[in-house]
């Protein structure tokens, strides 16, 4: 049964002026439309058009957050530009990533990769995290380049490379020259890579990582963390040798 688009006019007008604390029950018909849009390309297109206009306009953060949540459910390549435009906006970047992370299309990943090269600080960490969550292998090189920079960003990059766990990611981690807290993040990421290799049956690659970590700590660990890493590396070595 076709959805009555006229019934959405008033809720969309209310949504344009929405802010936190106001009654969100009024948008239940928009929620229902978003659900109905699955399998209804025409309705989906209409909703994306209206949502895009709200994202582009001078609406509140509350409105944009609501829209991003809906686009995470129904968004297509049509919505990517409007969402991408928010990635550099400190107030709305997080919710735009929330949507783009879940839109399973190459255009969404490309938008996140592009923003990675533009934004700085916590926004950059957000892009790294979203790309890793998407399992975006095309971002490995760009993320690897961040290992040598700002320590916080480098730690996030290391964690992301551990999640992505490609041979290139493992190589970048092995070549990194970390210091302080960053060193712990790199070791954790390398262990994650080794586990992923082991799960895929690449024992040789896993063993190389475990051996390298084990050798770097030696037989006399000094801290509790070193002891834990040594145990993890030994366990991994035995598993890789089995």
């Amino acid at each position, binding site marked *: 049964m076709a959805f009555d688009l006229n019934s959405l006019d008033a809720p969309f007008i209310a949504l344009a002026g929405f802010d936190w604390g106001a009654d969100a029950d009024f948008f239940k018909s928009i929620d229902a439309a978003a659900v109905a849009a699955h399998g209804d390309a025409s309705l989906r297109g209409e909703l994306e058009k209206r949502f895009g206009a709200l994202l582009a306009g001078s609406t509140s953060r509350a409105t944009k957050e609501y829209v991003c949540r809906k686009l995470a459910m129904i968004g297509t390549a049509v919505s990517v530009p409007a969402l991408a435009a928010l990635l550099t906006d400190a107030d709305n970047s997080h919710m735009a990533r929330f949507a783009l992370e879940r839109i399973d299309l190459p255009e969404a990943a490309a938008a996140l990769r592009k923003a990675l090269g533009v934004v700085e600080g916590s926004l950059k960490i957000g892009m790294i995290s979203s790309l890793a969550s998407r399992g975006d292998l095309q971002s490995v090189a760009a993320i690897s380049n961040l290992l040598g920079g700002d320590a916080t960003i480098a730690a996030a990059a290391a964690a992301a490379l551990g999640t992505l766990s490609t041979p290139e990611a493992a190589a970048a981690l092995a070549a990194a020259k970390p210091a302080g807290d960053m060193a712990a993040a790199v070791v954790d990421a390398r262990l994650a890579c080794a586990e992923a290799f082991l799960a895929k*049956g690449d024992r040789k690659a896993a063993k190389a990582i475990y051996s390298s970590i084990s050798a770097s700590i030696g037989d006399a660990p000094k801290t509790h963390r070193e002891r834990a890493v040594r*145990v993890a590396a030994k366990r991994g070595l*035995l598993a890789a*040798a*089995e």
Partner: protein
Amino acid sequence: MRRVLAVVCLVILLAFAPPSLLAAEAGEPPSRDVLDSVIELIRSGDADLLPVALEKVRGGLKGEDFTRELAEVVLPGLERSQDQAALLAALADRGDKAALPAIMAMAQGPAEAVVRAAAIRGVAALGGSDEVPFLESLLSGEAGTVDAARGALVAIRSDIVSPRLAIALGDEARSGPQRLAIVGILSERRETSALPALVAAAVDADADVRNAAMRSLGAMGGPEQIPGMVAGLLAARTDAERSDADRAIVQVCKEHRSKNLAAAALLDRFKAADPAAREVLLPTLARVGGPAVLEIVDGLIASPDAADRKLGLVALARWPDATVKDRLLHLVAQASTEEEREMLLGGLIRIAPLPNNSLDPAGKLALVEQTMSLCRRDQDRGRLLERASAIRTVETLRYVLPYVNQPTLAESACQSIVELAHQRKLRDGNKDEFMAALDKVLATTKNAEIADRAQRYKLGKTWERKKQ
């Protein structure tokens, strides 16, 4: 059709399965390198890495040859006893019987106590009926070994343990502590085939054995064991032992799935008993309760024989619920001696507030009021006031509160009020009344603990009861 589908699914799964999984499924033996690595870690004595190696012993590296190497070569060569004990535990968890001969040798040898105990546990985990005689022989050894053997005989999978131990239990040459250990093992194995042996042990010459057997029968026994348990009760030589035996019989008669049959069996034994035995059995019978027992009790109370009447009154005073309240009220009013009166009154004070005494809260409170009117001594009144706090209603608070004004009963009333106030739901639901009552308690009591509790409840806090 289904079979074809299953084959297709299997082919697809195998096509995408990782090589490691395929190797494991094919039963590929572990490489010498990895075995050597594990052995090296075990021998290293490294506290961090030993668990990593033992994890592999427990579940990773399969193969009888490796098991034998660990048990026959690595285990005896370890320098530290705690490492030997840890490897023994891992070999036991590994579940490979190939380790059993070496572990058995260690259990039989002159190893340190901690190692020997671990070996004995290993024998239990890997062994079966063939090892039971050895474990049984350890029961006459040193204390540490006996404990390990006891645990092993409880744990070992064998159907000859209970029959062998049942025979051993009847062996008078065995010491009391040994027979006591055997009763414990039979009890923990919970095999019904051991029940006749436990019944026999209920009349053992050793009081500890009798007690342990009765406790086991209380947990495991049924109607068939009641005659034997009655013999155990009659064999008890002290009040404490009689009380334990009584508790075990009541447990069977009230908790067993055939509890009515158990109660009937108890009644049959009572009817067949001589007068002296009846005197011992009647209080137990009374604690079980029921119409048939009440008929006997009524008959005894009506008897012209003073001894029979006293027996009946004792039984009535121990009744488990309030179904006898009218009888008790009537008999208290007609008591011929003060001793008789106190005993019956004690029964009323006990049953009036019982949680499952067949009365609703209002009925319980009414019975408390009736009982109070019969009390002649302040110590009985005080006891009744304190017991009344088990009726958790605001009406109880209203009943108890005026007694705070009576100097001789004030502390009992205060105690009862703080007990009621301890029930947060009751207290919060009647906040004004409780706050006023607690103020009165604080102004009256000389007892520091009661005052502390009253203060806490006023502030909305709780109070932790000291463990007995």
